[in-house]
């Protein structure tokens, strides 16, 4: 039996439990790779693929919401059990939602701005100076999210992921040339890192926690 009854560390364990399977980071990486692929195709193929763009934007909340939940229900919970986190306090919840919406708004605004100003072939016709920092800005925002989660819930691998994302942003920023190719490189690097980490964690999770079939014998009566 684990003897330590420290509510703070128990809460941290509970949050770590949510990230134990690597599903969230893997799907986030997959989305970044899809975005990277979209920009790469739009750089090389004449014509319009614009209708894919809103689909890609919509796919992020779908991947991190219902798709993640479905994977956890069918794969994760039968292995390590299920626990539902309590709802955050009303005031904290409002602030958190506001902060998330502002963050998403800024990033989407930057991406849409780029989308509006970019021309086929990778040129950004009237892109302002700050727009060229887009990979760095996205990288800092993403890394901040990983560092925050790493510190708050003591998840060691998130420090590494945050660091790798910052390195990917720095690398893409150090390259010369148009912004779209640099954005493609950043998203491909960051997406690959997240997807690989997610896959590795997921496979380790499957090996470490086989499906538990025996609750029947001990069904509480």
């Amino acid at each position, binding site marked *: *039996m684990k003897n330590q009854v420290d*509510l703070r560390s128990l809460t941290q364990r509970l949050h770590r439990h949510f990230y134990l399977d690597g599903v969230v980071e893997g799907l986030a990486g997959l989305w970044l790779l899809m975005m990277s692929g979209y920009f790469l195709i739009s750089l090389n193929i004449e014509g319009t693929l614009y209708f894919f763009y809103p689909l890609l934007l919509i796919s992020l909340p779908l991947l991190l919401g219902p798709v993640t939940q479905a994977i956890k229900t069918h794969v994760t919970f039968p292995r390590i*059990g299920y626990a539902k986190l309590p709802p955050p306090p009303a005031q904290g919840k409002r602030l958190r939602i506001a902060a998330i919406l502002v963050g998403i708004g800024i990033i989407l605004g930057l991406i849409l701005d780029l989308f509006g100003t970019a021309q086929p072939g990778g040129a950004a016709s009237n892109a302002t100076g700050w727009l060229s920092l887009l990979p760095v800005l996205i990288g800092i925002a993403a890394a901040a999210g990983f560092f925050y989660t790493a510190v708050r819930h003591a998840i060691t691998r998130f420090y590494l992921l945050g660091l790798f994302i910052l390195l990917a942003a720095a690398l893409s920023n150090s390259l010369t040339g148009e912004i779209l190719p640099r954005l493609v490189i950043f998203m491909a690097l960051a997406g690959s890192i997240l997807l690989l980490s997610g896959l590795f964690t997921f496979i380790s999770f499957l090996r470490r926690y086989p499906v*538990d079939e025996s609750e029947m014998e001990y*069904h*509480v009566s």
Partner: protein
Amino acid sequence: MNDTYLHKLADLDRLVHEPARLLILAYLSIVSEADFLFLLHETGLTRGNLSSHLSKLEEAGYVTIEKGYIGRKPHTLCKLTAAGRDALQTYRQMLKQALDL
């Protein structure tokens, strides 16, 4: 140590005081609900022990246990009741006061 409170240690709720049950109650106090498998993994208890302690906590009205099925597999969902939360809170306060924590 405060003598007045120290004498009250004898009045500690024995049902909560038992380490395994205290751990179960502590886990259930930080979640909205959790299933049997989650508690099994997190507490490190054996199945039989966990089952027995949950039954005692349920009898005391400190937890509610919903039995159901997911597909063909039985599923046991546990929640802390208001009485269970109060009992845990009272236990913490008594222990803190008695031991000057």
